[in-house]
């Protein structure tokens, strides 16, 4: 490769810094919105099966994953991405399968060992993400000891902080029927989620747009969730539960919609700072979920001083871990290793090197037509809106009490993050 001129090298370094800041910003915004997704589900107090709650949320997710990409870039852009790298559609669907099976395993883990033990076990997924990122995509290669310690140490500290928060917020759990099953289910969910990041990173080092990836991801996600729900509950019981849940379907689907907004930012974080840094940063969703729970729904009301201290300590540990990861940004040497991994994918699957390099740099490649929306895109947006409006019209007003002043404040902060990060993404990458 020819050496860059000093001006070109400075521009490349400045672009790299800009993309890294964007990745960090995306990871933190993802945390806020993934955490906010818990709020609508807290309004649902009916005795529904967790499988039904997950299935309805995934229905909201499906609508969002088809309508948002159509609105932002247009389905023609999604089609073009799939045409350039058709093999990635398979990986996206595979990732959706992995997510759905992991999500179902958590239901059994919580039932058998409770959230406080199950959560730290499946939260290990970010550590597995670091391993896969290193092995398959050259993440942290040539990063140096300080950055290794920052990323790995920061992630470990975040896991400990998250475990303390889970213990503080989950209360006492009565022993389930089979604790061994619960432990295995929680560990299994962690391995499945951690492995799901392989398709994420593979798609992004190959140049696929995150908006295209999630459109195919959701086919696997909703397909596997439907199959698991039918096989667990049976068609009759499932339909009966869905019928009885008519009044709360809107709130669950809204939770799914908000979750997708967070997930989209997580995808951009995984693209621009890799899975080893992007996934732990977006795992700050637990802090935001706790903020909603404590300030809006009074979940710590009447709890002991120990529980309050655990919440403060766990939160501080998570913030310290986030700081360590933020200050362990990618070096030029590590970035060049990422490009080696991208080139390897390009060679293997016959992708244009220029295209892959441009997309890795958050740009469109030369000759690539600008994304545009068609009638089909507006139809998809209108259809998703109509479904939400219908379920909103038949939704029951939640009977659960909440303090809506902090809710308004947290929602405002989340909206400011969404707007500023969205505008930044548009300015720097045009959502590439």
């Amino acid at each position: 490769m020819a050496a860059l001129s000093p001006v070109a090298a400075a521009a490349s370094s400045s672009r790299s810094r800009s993309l890294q800041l964007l990745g960090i910003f995306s990871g933190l915004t993802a945390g806020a919105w993934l955490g906010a997704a818990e709020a609508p589900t807290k309004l649902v107090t009916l005795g529904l099966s967790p499988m039904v709650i997950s299935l309805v949320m995934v229905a909201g997710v499906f609508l969002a994953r088809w309508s948002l990409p159509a609105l932002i870039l247009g389905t023609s852009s999604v089609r073009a991405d799939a045409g350039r790298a058709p093999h990635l559609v398979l990986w996206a669907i595979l990732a959706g399968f992995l997510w759905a099976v992991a999500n179902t395993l958590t239901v059994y883990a919580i039932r058998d060992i409770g959230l406080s033990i199950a959560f730290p076990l499946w939260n290990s997924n970010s550590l597995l993400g670091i391993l896969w990122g290193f092995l398959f995509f050259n993440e942290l290669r040539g990063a140096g000891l300080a950055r290794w310690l920052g990323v790995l140490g920061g992630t470990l500290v975040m896991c400990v902080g998250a475990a303390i928060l889970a213990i503080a917020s989950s209360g006492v759990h009565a022993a389930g029927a089979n604790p061994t099953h619960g432990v295995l289910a929680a560990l299994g969910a962690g391995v499945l989620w951690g492995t799901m990041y392989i398709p994420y990173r593979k798609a992004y080092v190959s140049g696929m747009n995150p908006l295209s990836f999630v459109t195919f991801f959701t086919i696997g996600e909703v397909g596997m969730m439907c199959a698991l729900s039918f096989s667990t509950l049976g068609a009759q019981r499932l339909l009966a539960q869905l019928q009885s849940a008519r009044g709360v379907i809107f709130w669950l689907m809204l939770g799914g919609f908000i979750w997708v907004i967070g997930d989209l930012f997580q995808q951009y974080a995984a693209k621009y700072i890799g899975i080893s840094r992007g996934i732990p940063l977006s795992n700050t969703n637990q802090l935001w979920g706790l903020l909603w729970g404590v300030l809006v729904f009074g979940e710590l009301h009447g709890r002991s001083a120990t529980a309050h201290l655990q919440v403060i300590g766990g939160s501080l540990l998570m913030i310290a871990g986030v700081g360590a990861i933020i200050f362990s940004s990618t070096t030029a040497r590590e970035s060049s290793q990422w490009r080696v991994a991208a080139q390897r994918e390009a060679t293997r699957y016959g992708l244009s090197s220029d295209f892959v390099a441009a997309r890795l740099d958050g740009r469109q490649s030369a000759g690539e037509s600008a994304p545009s929306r068609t009638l089909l895109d507006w139809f998809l947006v209108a259809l998703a809106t109509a479904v939400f409006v219908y379920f909103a019209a038949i939704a029951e007003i939640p009977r659960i009490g909440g303090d809506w002043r902090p809710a308004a404040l947290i929602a405002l902060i989340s909206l400011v993050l969404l707007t500023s990060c969205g505008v930044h993404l548009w300015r720097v990458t045009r959502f590439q």
Partner: protein
Amino acid sequence: MSGKDSVSARNLVTCVLTDVQFWVPVAVLAAGLLLLEWIR
């Protein structure tokens, strides 16, 4: 994408089936489904 870069459908299948990044998620998914079946 240039013609030189394009991979035929048969080659694409071979590329996928010989890619360890395909088999690791597939193996984990299969193990996850077996685990789920066992604990249900």
